């Protein structure tokens, strides 16, 4: 503990106010000055010397918005809005007093009332007609609202296993519906994911495992590929630089051959590239 405190004093700028978010291992690594080069995994020195360092991706639970493909975070509702069941009598609200208005608004309403209003807002954008709540688009829209609300709840209380399972099932049901819609009505599917801001991506191979050894092998392959491309580009550049002096030397040599052959009275066997065209032009005229 004493060591960690000493770290905080030495690296007060680096750690700062985020001290609470760092783990003990991370703090110890900062203390040793190794936090940038080493992540706590054993790696061969030949690899680390060449800058091949594996950084393990942060584990995200399956219900996380980044995994389920939510591109939009839910915006807080206007609390002065009326509850959904009071909406038919909205014109009469001016006649009642302020306390009643507040009681019938979302300010003192339950969470489920907020959800109903959110669903209504989404349905207004996507439903086919005013009574539509069973078409595949409407169902996906309502499930999306439900997922985003449950995800907000999960961030507050991560140990609520019942809610977590419920959320995961809802996400899976929506993914199934999205795949079905894509197969049957591709254009509508594209319109819907654009409206609801959902990222639709394929599910990874369930047998695939994330391991240090395999990841390092892939990184070495990428490093080799980059190195190959870089060296080929350098070699090409060097050849391009040699091109001009070589052509100049070639022209001079050819001209010397032409002149020597002309002086000896022998038929000319070669032609100088630049001068040949001029001669042919003059002959043509």
């Amino acid at each position, binding site marked *: 503990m004493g060591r960690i405190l000493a770290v905080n004093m030495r690296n007060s700028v680096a750690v700062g106010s985020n001290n609470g978010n760092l783990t003990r291992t991370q703090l110890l690594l900062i203390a040793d000055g190794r936090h940038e080069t080493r992540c706590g995994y054993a790696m061969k020195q030949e690899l680390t010397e060449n800058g091949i360092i594996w950084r393990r991706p942060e584990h995200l639970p399956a219900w996380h918005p980044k995994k389920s493909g939510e591109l939009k975070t839910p915006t807080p509702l206007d609390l002065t809005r009326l509850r959904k069941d009071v909406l038919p009598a909205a014109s009469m609200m001016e006649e009642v007093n302020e306390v009643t208005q507040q009681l019938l608004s979302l300010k003192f309403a339950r969470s489920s009332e907020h959800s109903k209003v959110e669903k209504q807002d989404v349905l207004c954008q996507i*439903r086919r007609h005013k009574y539509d709540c069973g078409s595949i688009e409407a169902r996906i829209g309502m499930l999306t609202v439900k997922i985003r609300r449950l995800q907000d709840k999960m961030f507050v209380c991560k140990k609520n296993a019942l809610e977590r399972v419920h959320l995961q099932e809802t996400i899976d049901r929506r993914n199934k519906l999205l795949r079905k819609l894509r197969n049957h009505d591709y254009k509508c599917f594209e319109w819907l994911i654009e409206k609801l801001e959902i990222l639709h991506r*394929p599910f990874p191979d369930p047998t695939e495992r994330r391991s240090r050894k395999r990841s390092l092998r892939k990184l070495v392959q990428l490093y080799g590929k980059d190195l190959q491309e870089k060296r080929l580009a350098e070699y090409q550049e060097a050849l391009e630089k040699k091109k001009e002096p070589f052509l100049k030397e070639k022209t001079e040599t050819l001209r010397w051959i032409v002149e020597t052959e002309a002086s000896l009275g022998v038929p000319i066997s070669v032609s100088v590239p630049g001068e040949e065209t001029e001669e042919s032009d003059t002959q043509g005229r």
Partner: protein
Amino acid sequence: MAKSLARSALFVGKCIAHELKGAAKVEVKLLELDENLHMYFPSFQHYFADDPKEECKTGDIVLIRELPKKKTVLITHSVEKMLYKLGDVTDPITGKNVIMSKYRDQIKERNEQFGPGEGDAGGFNYEEAPPRGWQEGKKDFSHRVGYKAWHVFEPGHPLHDDPAAS
């Protein structure tokens, strides 16, 4: 004899996601006889078909034929014909567009009968819709092969925050 027969044979298959450029990966379903049970069971064969313009999307039904000479090590077939494009499903008898088990006209008529609600956008309009594939690479990544994220790449790297990685 068998080889020449296989080369002249045409296969109907479904395009699936892949990472090879200038080709389409086609999944062909074949039925194999189990001699003990005297029953046919499905088995799937995968082929890479030459598609230089990359017209085949994931889910399209295509007709492929084996090339007389392999184009590359992987590309062994060519796309003869695009049979059904994924998207606008058409009933072959009436020639009308279909959504699931209903005609588009029927759905439109029903929607008009009920009418839109207050402040409604009116749902998806098929006539004004852009051609298919306009969300490919933006929000729809079904053309990519999904994989588990295996490394945190630095910003600027092509694999940084790859949407196909989850």
